[in-house]
């Protein structure tokens, strides 16, 4: 009642106003406004509620609402297990040995049943605890919010107009419909084509043949965008053997890599890096290996070479023949008649002159190879043609390099690659309607196959197309059925990459969604009852095969179950293989001579991060800077600065690259060290269907592939480059500028950011670095660290700048992905970065790299400028960052000379790609021991404080003092070269103390006297003389 009364009185009060308003209305409408505009303000028509009353009501109602919130003290619930698994303790990590689909042996860290980190399995004989960056990052794919969550089927076209629309379908129904189709296809004699990547799994191979037995018209096609196939073909032609032996990189004294990026992305890189780096031990300077690179594009291997020779890929064959001829004649080696006839007449001196190679380097190369006969390894890159591989085999056998190959441990593969003829036959069968069912078995042929096969067009004629895939991709587009598959961490499996070495894969988490592992789907279709799928169907199949094959081979003294569990526990079994004696006889097969070509040479390279595009939707990998150019989120056409000048282009100008009738437009990247008239492009970008993260990143250069190969499948000559006049910005995480720009030339040496020397110089005078040391004065009293003091040392002789540490750090420390637009403004969040500096000339650059992370300075400049004391120093020498105190002034960032602090300009998980990484599934991925930082907070490397705390907890539990060697940082664990050491520098016996006091140890920007706790061991280049001070080296 009261209310109504109030309102009435209000109304009567308000009656005073209308007259005034009306009057105004009248005037204004006459003078300024059209009549209807002011009508809205007619107070008669407005609510009778006054402003005052309105606020009173709002206030009262919110007060009531707040008063009803009586559970403000509520802290939620603790949801416990109903039946706790005996082996799990809340808050304690469990580790499982398993395997990735590429065959790497891994150790998975799980917390409360969810995998949070993948590292290499330390006991695995090939990996020895290290895996490449893609292996680390694949854990993101498991939690990818855009994963397919249930099977999809194309809607019936009879009912629905939009034919491409997909509907959810039951697994049982899908199984029924597809098995009917398969039975029908077999009965009618129509082909069932299954397209797959390389098969490394013996059990999968067995499944394939079982599948073929049930459906006889099944044909398998195996392909890989990049493969080792040419090397394998050459090996077979030369030695008559199918399987390639593994290479003992750690036995080679001289390595000549021909367009081979064995340290970057070819072969088992972690193993190769480890073996290569083992011969870069500063304690044994006499034992240093020497790496020569003859290449056109600047690769990671080329960056690490002691001598790098620029040569176009089309000239490699000729170069090898000349080199062989020179070595044979100078070294007075006896060779076969067929070899003599091949190499005779090839003059190295003339070749060097004609192609403008660095004569001094080539002379050194010849001298070194002759001197180290039997310890010299020549290795040709996978993209080079067969004839170069044959010539490589020839030179290696002439040099008697048999000891450098391990014939008892070979690279095994369970499928031969389909030839281009086989693929052409498939496409023509598809066109003729002879293919009833086509299954993309976790492959993406529409994106990968060369356009001139006409695969995607022929696909329309195929009755039923089925994709087994984790995410939607180009090949699943428009399919009749899309069947979602499990991630590696949800699957069973086995892999056999090396003779006698069998890896096991076990699931560490139940499938997150309604998915099945790809093998189980096929197995279910050939089982007796396809309508009753059981989750363990492939598990049993795998165990069954192991019991019959592996168990009998291993012949252990225990029963099968015990054997099986011990294999599962270890993650692998190494069956002793027979030692092979005697290197197979080399027989020179017929070789095709290389053609002389004109114009530009195009090289289509493997990229370092997203592989053949399969990791495109992985933000961590997309954002990982390229090890050479430091560009992220893009591919580009690398050309030499000189060639760019001739073309009239600068960085980011778009050029058109045309080979025959195929053309692609790409932004230019000026790359010092590129051979002239060679353009290098990385494949794997420009995906059109790769989710929110991967779609439209970079440019698709697969268009340049052709079924008719050029020099090889990946190298084409006679290309035409034209300037388009457009620009497209490629963003790099490091400022780039011309190498010979006077202002910045050799800045990293002049400023003592990096120090380097030569092996010869070091042998003559081990203390050469300490001679120029200055006495540094400090105004601060020295702080004492009586207990532990944490310190890190990075051996630059071993570090090859592979960026595995960056990815491992990202995952361990919940580092967000920021996206290309934020990288453009320098806001990437990586706690550790690989700096790359050029010196020398644009033609023959010397590359220096340096991992840069928080140096945890004793007199840290960041600490004394923080107005809120959010960053402080601990009494164990750590530079601490307290997120909760940080208000985001960024003073610390401005005062840090190393620029290693990172600021959260946004909540990047929300900011990036429509908040795709803010979704619930990603929460499972976060490391629960590390705060997930939000907007407005500064962050930086903590020396993995969570791992230190964990080690301290363990030590406390055991009643022992904490030791420096108890802690391993995430970057240290990931480093394939074991370049990173970490520990307590107050422990005089420890490795870290020795390294800190090493003759080659230095701090970056030492003259600032801020006393960093990261020591770098200066890189020694294995040069011939000490003449190299001319090249800017401090020796």
């Amino acid at each position, binding site marked *: 009642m009261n209310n109504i009364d109030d309102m009435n009185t209000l109304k009567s009060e308000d009656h005073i106003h209308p007259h005034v308003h009306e009057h105004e209305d009248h005037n204004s409408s006459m003078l300024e406004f059209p009549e209807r505009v002011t009508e809205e303000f007619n107070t008669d028509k407005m609510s009778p509620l006054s402003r005052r009353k309105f606020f009173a009501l709002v206030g009262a109602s919110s007060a009531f609402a707040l008063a009803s919130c009586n559970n403000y003290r509520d*802290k939620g*619930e*603790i949801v*416990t297990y*109903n039946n706790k698994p005996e082996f799990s303790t*809340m808050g304690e990590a469990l580790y499982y040995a398993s395997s990735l689909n590429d065959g790497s042996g891994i150790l998975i860290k799980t917390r409360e049943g969810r995998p949070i980190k993948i590292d290499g399995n330390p006991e695995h004989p090939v990996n020895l605890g290290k895996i490449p960056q893609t292996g680390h990052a694949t854990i993101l794919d498991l939690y990818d919010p855009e994963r397919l969550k249930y099977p999809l089927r194309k809607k019936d076209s009879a009912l629905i107009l939009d034919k491409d629309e997909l509907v959810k379908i039951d697994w049982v129904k899908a199984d029924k419909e597809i098995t009917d189709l398969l039975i029908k296809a077999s009965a009618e004699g129509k082909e069932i084509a299954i397209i797959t990547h390389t098969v490394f799994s013996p059990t999968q191979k067995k499944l394939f043949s079982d599948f073929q037995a049930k459906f006889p018209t099944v044909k398998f096609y195996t392909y890989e965008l990049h493969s080792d196939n040419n090397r394998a073909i050459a090996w077979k032609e030369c030695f008559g053997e199918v399987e390639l032996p593994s290479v003992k990189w750690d036995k080679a004294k001289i390595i000549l890599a021909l367009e081979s990026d064995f340290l970057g992305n070819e072969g088992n890189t972690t193993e190769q890096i480890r073996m290569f780096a083992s011969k870069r031990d500063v304690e044994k300077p006499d034992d240093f290996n020497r790496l020569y690179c003859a290449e056109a594009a600047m690769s990671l291997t080329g960056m690490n070479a002691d001598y790098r020779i620029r040569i176009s890929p089309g000239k490699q064959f000729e170069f090898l023949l000349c080199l062989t001829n020179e070595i044979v004649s100078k070294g007075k080696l006896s060779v076969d008649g067929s070899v003599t006839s091949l190499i005779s007449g090839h003059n190295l001196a003339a070749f060097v002159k004609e192609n403008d190679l660095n004569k001094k380097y080539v002379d050194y190369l010849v001298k070194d190879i002759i001197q180290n006969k039997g310890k010299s390894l020549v290795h040709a890159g996978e993209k080079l043609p067969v004839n170069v591989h044959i010539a490589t085999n020839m030179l290696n056998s002439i040099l008697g390099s048999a000891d450098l190959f391990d014939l008892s441990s070979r690279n095994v593969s369970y499928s031969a690659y389909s030839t281009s003829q086989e693929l052409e036959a498939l496409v023509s069968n598809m066109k003729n309607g002879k293919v009833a069912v086509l299954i993309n078995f976790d492959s993406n042929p529409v994106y990968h196959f060369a356009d001139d096969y006409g695969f995607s067009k022929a696909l329309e004629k195929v009755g039923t197309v089925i994709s087994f895939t984790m995410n939607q991709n180009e090949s699943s587009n428009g399919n009749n059925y899309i069947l979602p598959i499990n991630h590696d961490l949800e699957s069973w499996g086995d892999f056999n990459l090396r003779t006698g070495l069998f890896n096991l894969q076990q699931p560490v988490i139940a499938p997150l969604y309604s998915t099945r592992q790809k093998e189980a789907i096929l197995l279910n279709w050939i089982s007796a009852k396809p309508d009753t799928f059981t989750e363990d169907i492939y598990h049993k199949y795998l165990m069954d095969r192991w019991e019959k094959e592996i168990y009998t081979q291993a012949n252990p003294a225990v029963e099968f179950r015990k054997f099986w569990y011990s294999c599962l526990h270890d993650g692998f079994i190494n069956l002793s293989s027979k030692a092979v004696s005697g290197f197979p006889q080399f027989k020179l097969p017929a070789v095709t001579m290389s053609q002389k070509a004109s114009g530009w040479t195009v090289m289509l390279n493997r990229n370092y991060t997203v592989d053949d595009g399969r990791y495109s939707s992985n933000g961590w990998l997309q954002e990982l800077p390229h090890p050479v150019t430091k560009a992220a989120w893009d591919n580009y056409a690398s050309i030499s600065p000189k060639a760019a000048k001739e073309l009239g282009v600068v960085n980011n100008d778009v050029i058109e690259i045309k080979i025959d009738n195929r053309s692609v437009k790409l932004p230019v990247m000026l790359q010092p060290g590129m051979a002239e008239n060679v353009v290098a492009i990385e494949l794997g970008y420009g995906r059109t269907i790769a989710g929110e993260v991967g779609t439209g990143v970079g440019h698709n250069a697969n268009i340049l592939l052709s079924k008719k190969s050029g020099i090889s499948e990946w190298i084409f000559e006679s290309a035409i480059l034209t300037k388009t006049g457009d620009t497209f910005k490629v963003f790099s995480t490091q400022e780039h500028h011309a190498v010979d720009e006077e202002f910045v030339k050799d800045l990293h040496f002049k400023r003592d950011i990096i120090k380097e020397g030569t092996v010869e110089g070091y042998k003559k005078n081990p203390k050469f670095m300490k001679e120029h040391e200055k006495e540094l004065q400090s105004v601060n009293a020295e702080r004492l660290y009586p207990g532990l003091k944490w310190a890190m040392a990075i051996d630059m002789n071993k570090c090859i700048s592979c960026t595995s540490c960056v990815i491992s750090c990202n995952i361990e420390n919940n580092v967000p992905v920021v996206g290309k637009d934020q990288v453009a403004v320098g806001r990437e969040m990586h706690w550790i970065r690989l700096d790359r500096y050029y010196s020398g000339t644009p033609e023959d650059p010397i590359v220096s790299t340096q991992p840069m992370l928080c140096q945890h300075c004793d007199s840290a400049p960041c600490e004394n400028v923080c107005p809120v004391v959010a960053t402080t120093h601990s009494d164990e020498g750590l530079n*601490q960052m307290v997120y909760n105190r940080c208000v985001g002034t960024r003073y610390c960032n401005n005062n840090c000379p190393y620029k290693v602090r990172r600021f959260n300009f946004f909540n990047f998980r929300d900011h990036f790609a429509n908040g795709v990484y803010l979704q619930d599934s990603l929460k499972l991925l976060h490391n629960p021991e590390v705060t997930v930082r939000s907007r407005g907070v500064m962050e930086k490397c903590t020396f993995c404080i969570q791992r230190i705390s964990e080690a301290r907890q363990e030590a406390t539990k055991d009643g022992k003092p904490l030791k420096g060697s108890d802690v391993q940082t995430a970057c240290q664990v990931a480093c394939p070269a074991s370049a990173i050491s970490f520990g307590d520098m107050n422990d005089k016996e420890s490795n870290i103390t020795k390294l800190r006091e090493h003759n080659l140890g230095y701090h970056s920007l030492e003259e600032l006297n801020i006393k960093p706790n990261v020591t770098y061991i200066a890189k020694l280049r294995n040069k011939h003389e000490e003449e190299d001070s001319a090249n800017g080296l401090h020796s």
Partner: protein
Amino acid sequence: MEKQHLDRILKIRLPITIGVILVAVALTFLISKSERDGVGYQPEQPIKYSHLLHAGQLKIDCKYCHTGVEKARHAGVPSASICMNCHSVARRDRPEIIKLVKYYTDGTPIPWKRVYKLGDFAYFNHSSHVVKGINCVHCHGDVANAEVISQKMSFRMSQCLSCHRDAHNRLPELGDKIKNGPVNCSNCHR
């Protein structure tokens, strides 16, 4: 006259007003302090479990149920299966036990109300404290004599530091066995 009036306001009424406001703020701050810190928080639990009965009278060791307390960061609230170790036979007819058995057989976790909660930005570790011999009572109060569990102490940083800086006086029963705890930021915040 006006001046006099203003004078009186400035001299008497203003200080009184400010004083009253200050006293009110201070009193509210002090009185509500424990409330704001959650001291005395005693929510109603889904099952009327009594620590007095189990820990006090039956003298069951804390670690029997809170299994993680010596091993891990979390002490852990026991799973229903641990209760069922005894209650698969003991006191099956009591209404609270019937509730427990129902949760257990249905496979639904018991929605215990959370009593103790540290800020997300602090990483506390039970095991490192308990293995040093620090009694649960120091932080959780005399649980063995509490029918219903409630928060006994404020979990502010000052509370942590009072022991970490002065362990001998705060934990006299441990004598020389205890040293001051670390006081670096990163020991708890990371």
